């Protein structure tokens, strides 16, 4: 043993000293951001899904307008310096800012803007849904998007809606991203409008350009030397795939990353006391909810649905399971959005729930299944709700699985109860929430309106459909606000299939020397304002 130790000891010690890390912090002009990139499948703005991709592209592409980070209802100019809505609410005219250029050096013209929207509709990929909902299609794209001159874009609304929701839609990454037509079409392959090339290349006018995307490894953004706005402080942004929350936390504490975007509540809490790390929370999009399937005859009874409403521990769930990720909300419109009513104030009330169940013919409760994604925080939510349901005799067996299994069952309309997350909210407009949560234009199985959660829950109410449609086209703002308040009241009275108990918020951890970070809702944080003060 001794000769072995004599050799191995010095070798180990020497190699440890030799290979010790040289740098303890990130470079001063490079921002290093960590989050899980598992869901990034493409960087083509027309095809993206998931908030992680939004976080990347929001720094590469400009839109005509931008949703304000602080005041969610406010829309700020971006590529468009101004816009006007026609008196009949039938069209919107945008005037482009002068001097804006793409990273290629090409000027941003109205032709690029119109082409970007037409491309979105013609490719008909994931992000087209936002405009398709409001009547835009590949067939009417040529008539809907026109450019009378180089600096003007006119959008003709194919059906009567609130023009404000269209302006807001153009402010979100994906449907509103403006692409460099010439640069993209140089890489057109068999008429794909550059879709294959844009998977891992960029053609935007934002503060950064795509340097490199290595799937599940990193995305590197380089400062756009031709950026037409205020020059960003950072020369490069390195986004690193860090799937594990604990790895993010350790690297953030050590200073090897500057911002951690996808840490768990436990790790965020552990960092609360750190003097080197700060935590920022801002609005997200959507709700945590308990949904029932109206295919199940038990849940067709309003009394049963109402009983479930009183078997949710609203405060308890938000305090114990959802800190950093949810804020108590029992209405289907997020707080702060125009027309949002204050919380209804539902509380866990087992006695009331039992009485309602007895009235519905289930004095001893019933067995059922409760589906939840086998991930944080859904399993904890399901377990807590299972316990409160049991207090009224409802024996819910938890069924867990991947997102495909749980939401797949919803899309197939084959489930009883689901603890889920969703319900619109990417737009600061109540219509986006109502349309996602309760609107259902056709309840037939064959309709397969899987993008409407109202359809998924088999909930159909002609009156609320009409109320939602009417509110969207109401031209008088005060009246519109009143109509949205009425919908919320009606929603509460009729006890629909989805009961929200928390609205989604996002939390990030960042090094204390990072300044200018303004967390935007729904992972659309602009990093051009971020700098390091060391």
């Amino acid at each position, binding site marked *: 043993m001794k000769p072995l130790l004599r050799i191995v000891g010095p070798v180990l010690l020497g190699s440890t000293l030799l290979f010790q890390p040289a740098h*303890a912090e990130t470079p001063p002009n490079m921002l290093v951001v960590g989050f899980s990139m598992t869901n990034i499948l493409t960087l083509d703005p027309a095809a993206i899904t998931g908030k992680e991709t939004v976080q990347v592209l929001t720094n590469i592409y400009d839109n005509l307008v931008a949703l304000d980070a602080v005041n969610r209802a406010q829309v700020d100019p971006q590529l468009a310096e101004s816009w006007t809505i026609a008196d009949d609410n039938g069209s919107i005219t945008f005037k482009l800012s002068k001097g804006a250029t793409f990273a290629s050096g090409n000027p941003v013209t109205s032709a690029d803007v119109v082409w970007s929207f037409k491309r979105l509709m013609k490719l008909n990929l994931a992000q087209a849904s936002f405009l398709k909902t409001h009547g835009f299609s590949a067939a009417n794209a040529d008539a809907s998007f026109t450019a009378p001159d180089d600096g003007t874009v006119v959008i003709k609304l194919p059906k009567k809606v609130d023009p404000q929701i269209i302006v807001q839609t153009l402010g979100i990454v994906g449907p509103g991203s403006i692409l460099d037509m010439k640069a993209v079409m140089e890489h057109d392959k068999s008429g794909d409008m550059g879709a294959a090339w844009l998977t891992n290349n960029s053609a935007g006018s934002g503060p950064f350009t795509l340097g490199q995307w290595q799937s599940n490894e990193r995305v590197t953004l380089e400062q756009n030397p031709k950026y037409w706005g205020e020059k960003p402080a950072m020369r490069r942004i390195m986004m690193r795939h860090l799937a594990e929350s604990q790895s993010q936390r350790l690297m953030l504490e050590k200073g090897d990353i500057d911002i951690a975007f996808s840490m768990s509540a436990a790790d965020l809490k552990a960092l609360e006391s750190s003097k080197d790390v700060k935590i920022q929370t801002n609005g997200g999009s959507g709700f945590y909810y308990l949904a029932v399937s109206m295919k199940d005859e038990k849940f067709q009874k309003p009394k049963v649905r109402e009983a479930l409403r009183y078997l949710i521990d609203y405060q308890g769930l938000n305090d114990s399971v959802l800190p950093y990720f949810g804020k108590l909300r029992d209405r289907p419109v997020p707080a702060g959005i125009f027309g949002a009513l204050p919380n209804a104030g539902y509380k866990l009330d087992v006695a009331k729930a039992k009485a309602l169940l007895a009235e519905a013919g289930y004095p001893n409760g019933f067995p059922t299944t409760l589906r939840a994604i086998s991930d944080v925080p859904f399993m904890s939510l399901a377990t807590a709700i299972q316990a409160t349901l049991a207090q009224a005799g409802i024996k819910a067996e938890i069924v867990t699985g991947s997102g495909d299994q749980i939401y797949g069952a919803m899309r197939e309309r084959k489930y009883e109860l689901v603890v889920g997350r969703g319900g619109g909210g990417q737009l600061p407009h109540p219509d986006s929430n109502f349309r996602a949560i309760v609107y259902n234009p056709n309840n037939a199985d064959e309709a397969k309106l899987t993008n409407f959660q109202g359809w998924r829950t088999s909930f159909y109410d002609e009156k609320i459909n009409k109320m939602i449609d009417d509110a969207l086209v109401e031209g008088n703002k005060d009246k519109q606000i009143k109509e949205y308040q009425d919908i919320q009241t009606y929603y509460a009275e009729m006890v629909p299939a989805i009961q929200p108990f928390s609205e989604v918020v996002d939390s990030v951890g960042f090094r204390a020397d990072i300044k200018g970070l303004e967390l935007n809702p729904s992972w659309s944080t602009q990093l051009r304002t971020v700098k390091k003060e060391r």
Partner: protein
Amino acid sequence: MNNERLTAFTRQAGTILATLLGLLILTFCIGRLMPVDPVRAIVGEEADQATYNMVAERIGANLPLYQQFFRYVNDLAHGDFGTSIRTGQPVINDILHVMPATIELATFAIIVGAGLGIPLGILAAVRRNRPVDHIIRFLTLIGHSMPIFWTGMIGLIIFYAALDLVGGGGRLSDYYIGLVPETTGFLLIDAIIAGDWEVFRDAVNHLLLPASILGYSSMAYITRMTRSFMLDQLNQEYVTTARVKGLSKGRTIWHHAFANIRVQLVTIVALAYGSLLEGAVLIETVFSWPGFGQYITNNMLIGDMNAVMTCVLLVGIIFIALNLLSDALYKIFDPRTR
């Protein structure tokens, strides 16, 4: 004799092809039975049915299963491994990108595992039931029974966060990413080619911990197997005879007993290396190591079957190659098999 060799070769080639085809059929069936929807992964939750159908048609997910399978095998026969849904790149390019990272990790790990495991196994057998044997068995028991995910995390907390001895996640620190051109994909080799010793030093610094933890896990297995094989040999009469005839203990162990377990050890080490190449997914996740294990797992989770099938095919080929290598080494170490 030539005919015999030709027949043996044909038989072996036939067996290999049949194995690979069986592997493909099995993987395809499992992949399709799994409740994952590749189309939904592409179009997202908000997309409507028209978009869903269009993408399903584009990637062939609307075809009957047998047609999807034959289309894949037909493309394969023409050297086309397909395009990955996740990256939009030819699968073979993706694999060529991730494989070097895993080979680097697995090779260092097996050097640690076999380099320590074999001597420790022999030492434990020779000192059977003495304190050294107990200590070695205890250490290997820990290495064998602790979840590698947990070991990795604890390793990071101690050696990276607390002691600052090694690098954190990834293959390089942010300062060095992109500094050396990707010539071979093996960072250490690329750094040597570029003559950039700072990058080399940093790459080793990042490799040390995950490779050591993986190596420790392999070592536990190799040590226990070596000990067991060696004990068998030490109980043989020829060992007693050799000692009675005055042969030294060292010579008896290394020249006679160890010579007789080399063939078994080759198999054990080859299989352990094969497992490291395809099964390091947990360590790759903890250390954000962009390797083959993560690639195959993430693609399996979204039902990217082109990528999964090619990966499985590659794993099959790796194991077959390692087995063939073992067979070749048998012939060197054991004249009876020639």
